């Protein structure tokens, strides 16, 4: 790993700082964690995520792991999955969860928010076509309901209900006969307008050794 070399370490760190916006402390901590996950290898593969025991209990585990390898999140292309990611990619993904710096301008804040929502959108949109179809939505609902077979049918209905709500929000009353096929990113933004993303999608990377949550 490049950071191990002493003479270029600080340069690399500074470069990473510039690209991802983390401070050097945070980069160091994340680098340690990266090494733990990867077993001192320079890259991480999907299997390495099995080393995180608490992740097992997470119902959307597969989506989270997938998100790490998604080319759209890594800004490497419009679709597809990488096989392995290096530390810079790791940091790129983590940077989506940095707290929004409210001292930045309005423009910047809106941009950060949009980025985070785009990350979320990519989690829904599995086939990378830029829209969330009913099928994909239903998949998400099923995962959230922990893949319970009892509620498979109702998962479908829930997804449909959600789509209808989305339709009513996005299309309004103007075209009552139009069939609402899928949610685009703009519609997604509209739906999630009311939710406070800032508190939900950020993690304090400052002091990762304590167990406190940041409010």
């Amino acid at each position, binding site marked *: 790993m490049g950071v191990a070399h002493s003479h270029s370490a600080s340069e690399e760190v500074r470069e990473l700082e510039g690209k991802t916006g983390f401070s050097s402390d945070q980069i160091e901590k*994340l680098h340690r*964690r990266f090494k733990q996950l990867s077993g001192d290898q320079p890259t991480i593969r999907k299997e390495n995520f*099995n080393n*995180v*025991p*608490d*992740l*097992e*209990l*997470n*119902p*959307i*585990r*597969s989506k*989270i792991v997938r998100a*790490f390898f998604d080319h759209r999140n890594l800004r490497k292309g419009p679709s597809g999955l990488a096989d392995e990611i290096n530390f810079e990619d790791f940091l790129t993904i*983590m940077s989506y969860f940095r707290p929004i710096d409210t001292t930045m301008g309005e423009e910047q804040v809106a941009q950060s928010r949009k980025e985070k929502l785009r990350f*979320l959108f990519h989690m829904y949109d599995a086939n990378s076509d830029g829209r969330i179809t009913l099928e994909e939505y239903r*998949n998400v609902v099923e*995962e*959230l*309901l*922990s893949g*319970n*077979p*009892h*509620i*498979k*049918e*109702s998962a479908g209905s*829930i997804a*449909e*209900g*959600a*789509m*209808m*709500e*989305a339709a*009513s929000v996005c*299309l309004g009353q103007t075209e*009552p006969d*139009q*069939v*609402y096929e899928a949610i685009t990113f703009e519609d997604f933004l509209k*739906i*999630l307008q009311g*939710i406070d993303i800032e508190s*939900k*999608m*950020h*993690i304090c990377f*400052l*002091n*990762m*050794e*304590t*167990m*406190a*949550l940041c*409010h």
Partner: protein
Amino acid sequence: MALQMFMTFGSWNCLLLLVALEYSKASSDVNESANSTAQHAPNAWFAASSSEPDERISVFELDYDYVQIPYEVTLWILLASLAKIGFHLYHKLPGLMPESCLLILVGALVGGIIFGTDHKSPPVMDSSIYFLYLLPPIVLEGGYFMPTRPFFENIGSILWWAVLGALINALGIGLSLYLICQVQAFGLGDVNLLQNLLFGSLISAVDPVAVLAVFEEARVNEQLYMMIFGEALLNDGITVVLYNMLIAFTKMHKFEDIEPVDILAGCARFIIVGVGGVMFGIVFGFISAFITRFTQNISAIEPLIVFMFSYLSYLAAETLYLSGILAITACAVTMKKYVEENVSQTSYTTIKYFMKMLSSVSETLIFIFMGVSTVGKNHEWNWAFICFTLAFCQIWRAISVFALFYVSNQFRTFPFSIKDQCIIFYSGVRGAGSFSLAFLLPLSLFPRKKMFVTATLVVIYFTVFIQGITIGPLVRYLDVKKTNKKESINEELHIRLMDHLKAGIEDVCGHWSHYQVRDKFKKFDHRYLRKILIRENLPKSSIVSLYKKLEMKQAIEMVETGILSSTAFSIPHQAQRIQGIKRLSPEDVESIRDILTCNMYQVRQRTLSYNKYNLKPQTSEKQAKEILIRRQNTLRESMRKGHSLPWGKPAGTKNIRYLSFPYGNPQSAGRDTRAAGFSDDDGSNPGSPSITFSAHSRIRSLQKQQAPEIIPMKSLRRGGKTLSFGYQRSTSQEEHMGGSRRVALRPKPPFHAVDEEGESGGESEGEAFAVRSRWTTDRGHGRDYHRSHSPLLQRK
């Protein structure tokens, strides 16, 4: 209704007490008189014997004095326990007021009875009894149940707050009261500075843990929790140290003789007493942990060792005039980690319960005694002193909270908000500690002791009742941030997804992991301490703990599937394709929302839960236990029925047999597989298909890319109709799931495969086997299940 029962209990006990007291009064009257003829009186009440004294054996006698003290003490404790039962019967009460309220009321009741019957209360409380017997269990319990990791992570803030807070409060209240006493109008001129300082120190002994139960539901964050807990833990020790020091001062000097040297010596002594106590405690903790290493064969004495060593640490520290309280606390904290690993499960439970019991008995006695003192003639009411005491308590607590937290917030990465500080300020409820210290003031040094006791009682009553009851609503009021706007389904889904996402990313970046916490200590601990202090047979216990972990995961999932079968399906069926834009009716939305809230996997709760008076098992533990019990019952039944291996049965039987997937990597075992193999000879156990079904759906999500290759899914679908009726039988389902799970974990599980119709059966088995073998090679852990594969092969 519960209240009525409570009243009944209360009145029954009143009756009992009254009767007992009447008899005792009569007998004590009798015994006092030297007149021999008077001795006839009790005898005459019962069977009459001869009229000559001292020559006949009386048939019935009454000797109450012999048993008076233990009898009454036992009655008190029983009364308090009955009151607690009544208290908890009405389930809303514990959320309204802290249990201290209840204990005080019971104490007042007993006091009223004793006062009413003019009975001399037994001398339960004097200085040595309190400090030697009543106080250690309370402190031990606090130290033992303290969550160590958050405590040590926040230890800087906790020490800063607890130590300095107690000091500021004590000195502040003492000094302000002294200034008040100087005012001639109040008639308090004879109370000098030292006495005021002493009073200040004893009145600042808070017991905030008592109110924790009240706002437990209001999601108090962990930091706040630890601050309150830590303060309660250390506060007792600090106030007692101060108290003893100031008593020593009072004894040794008159006020005018005190020189600065003495004050410096006092401060130095304070530090030495505190630190020395902690050192003692740690040493004793290590010794006891070491000894429990060797107690495999006599596990019955393990609780004894734990308790005796803790108590010994207390006594040894007290011998050297060090702080016994801090010693016993440190002993409990040190000991807990190693002892928990060494002792057997039953010993562990015994220790926990016994500790709770002892501490609750102590506290009950103290509160009852407080009630007894309340109703009595030995009060001295001085309006000025009491009102100013109350006022200063609140003022100084507010000052200390806001000042100290302002400073410590500068150094913390996660500062406490004003709301948190308000909660900490308001949770300054006094408890048994301050009363005891007030009661034990030596009368010779404190001629106005009665006034102090009265003032203490007033403060305690005020804080416990008024603050205790109003803190719940206050916290809930402060906690409500957003308006209770009903969220749309979309928003709810998205919010839940984001919560899970956040939890997942936090896991990935090691936010909650155990690895990063205090690395150095952990390494040291692993390398040296654990080798010395923990038993040799570690591999066995690691398998046991692994088993427990697996079971816990499976239990959680089983419960998920089990519970969910009972929810009513009231979802109206809607068209498959969305034709146009329809509006969802509110009932639909409601029913959808209900299903979502019941069934969506809850994000892990990281908040702690401590109840001073109760040992509540966590819900997952409870569920796991229930499932284990059911599973054992099923197992016993199935053993009794004499089930043999399935392939011994004739092929003609129309069985529903199920695939058994091997357990993969233990960490992913919970997610990946459901073993659903068990033997049965009738089709009455269709419960398992739901398990395998859920297993398949998880497998599906886990290995999305390999979805087409998971053929067993399809084969199950083919036999869909036979499997569908499994869903209706919820309870049997759980049991059989339990039975299957248990059986599957054994080395050679009885083994089945799904069999619908003949021709597809072979195929499915073959394909299933192919999947299975691929799986085991992937995971590499199929050691037990490789063996189980062969019977299937043989069968074919």
